[in-house]
């Protein structure tokens, strides 16, 4: 390998009170990659992303980003370092307008020109948001909210984007669209860590993948190989 990974989780443990949600996770994401993290409900996928973003604190183990230890960095500063998250269930600010949601994505930034540029780019990428720019986000459809959540994360200008089940509850056509947008974003230089229930799609777009089961990584490797793995096929690809 030689080059240090962009993101490196080492023996990461996370507890929710008495619940031991992550039991010593090791995971790396290299610069420019798309890495998928798949697993059943309750496996700890969202917890992994929450720990990286600093929303929940690790009980032991370490997280480093660009070689810097970020295990104890508060969530609002993690964003400033270049890690954006599109959380599970979108979590758009339903009481705010589409524009205000996007502006909040740029909350940490001061470069007015760059913000304007990125806003235009996001609206170009998601014309449907452009049409609904003044509308309150709560009135958007599920798919539009997902676009808004992705757009909002893009507005932070991340180096690494964490996506938590972006295809959840979307019609097949929209799922395809979202995945191709994720690939586009990656090609433009943003590294991606993707959590998905839709293992088939997740393994298609990723270069590498990890399989999480009740808080432990049970498999990892190139996504193409995992897609051929008998256990993975049985458990996550419907036989």
């Amino acid at each position, binding site marked *: 390998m030689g080059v240090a990974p962009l993101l490196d989780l080492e023996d990461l443990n996370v507890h929710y009170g008495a619940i031991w949600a992550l039991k010593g996770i090791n995971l790396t994401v290299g610069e420019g990659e798309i890495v998928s993290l798949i697993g059943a409900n309750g496996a700890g996928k969202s917890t992994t992303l929450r720990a990286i973003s600093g929303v929940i604190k690790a009980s032991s183990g370490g997280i480093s980003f660009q070689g810097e230890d970020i295990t104890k960095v508060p969530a*609002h500063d993690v*964003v400033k370092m270049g890690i*954006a998250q599109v*959380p599970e269930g979108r979590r758009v600010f339903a*009481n705010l307008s589409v524009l*205000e949601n996007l502006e*909040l994505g740029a909350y940490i930034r001061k470069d007015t020109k760059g913000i304007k540029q990125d806003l235009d780019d996001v609206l170009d990428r998601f014309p449907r948001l452009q049409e609904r720019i003044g509308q309150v986000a709560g009135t958007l459809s599920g798919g539009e909210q997902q676009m808004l959540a992705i757009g*909002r994360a893009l507005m932070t200008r991340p180096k690494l984007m964490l996506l938590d089940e972006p295809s959840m509850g979307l019609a097949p056509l929209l799922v395809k669209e979202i995945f191709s947008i994720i690939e586009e974003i990656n090609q433009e230089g943003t590294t991606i860590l993707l959590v998905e229930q839709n293992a088939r799609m997740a393994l298609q777009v990723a270069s590498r993948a990890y399989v999480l089961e009740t808080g432990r990584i049970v498999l990892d490797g190139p996504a193409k190989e995992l897609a051929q793995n008998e256990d993975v096929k049985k458990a996550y690809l419907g036989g």
Partner: protein
Amino acid sequence: MQDLLQQLLNGLSQGSIYALIAVGYTMIYGIIQLINFAHGDVIMVGAYVALGAALMGFGFIPSLILAMITCAILGVVIERVAYRKVRPVSRLAALTSAIGVSLFLQYTMMYFLGADIRSFPADILPERTYTLGGVIVTNKDLLVLGTTLVLVIILQFIIFRTRTGKAMRAVSFDGQAAQLMGINVNYTVAFTFFIGSAMAAAAGMLYGICFNVQPLMGLMPGLKAFIAAVLGGIGSVPGAMLGGILLGMTESLVAAFGGSMYRDAVAFIILILILLIRPTGLLGKGVQEKV
């Protein structure tokens, strides 16, 4: 008819004081889902600070500003010391802590300044009255209405036009998602206490000028403003203003036409009725959109 107008005017003036207090309740509730029971006592502290300043010869506006700044800082300190650590534990713990702060403020004031009822010096506002079509308007009314109007406009500007205001709205909707935008939730909560408590101080000064100043003075207006906030839909700033004005007017009408004995009872009856008929209040959200 003139009588009615007169009562409505009195109610408007009283109601705008409630409104100033209620916005603080509602903003703080909106952002951390805590009924800040100490809010009424912040009013009292504000009134004393303003009174002290007035007695030292400061005019209305400097006294007002001094009281607002002092209480804004007091609000931040209260949040930091008494709420921040207990908030994540449980709501009941935070509520209990709030009641503790309330009693602490009341009895600290009583200890140091005694329970005497004090009044603002008359020269802070030499009484003048105007007659408008038979309705008597005092300069006190104008002062209360004017101050409230200015403060409410500033508040609206902060909430809807500034970056921090946007952060406040984001945090009150979804704190965790706000963190993911790089918003410092603790700072935003502290800022909300800062603003809410400054508003309370202004209300305290106005209340003190209209009535008097004593250590337990915050209790009744605090409770009434709480009712106003629930009436308008707790968490909603326009709701709190509307609730305050409506409550003030209702009270004033009841006092004039039903007897002042019933005035306070009516406020509480309104609260119970609202909770029965429309639990989310007049401008409240149908469902709490908390995740």
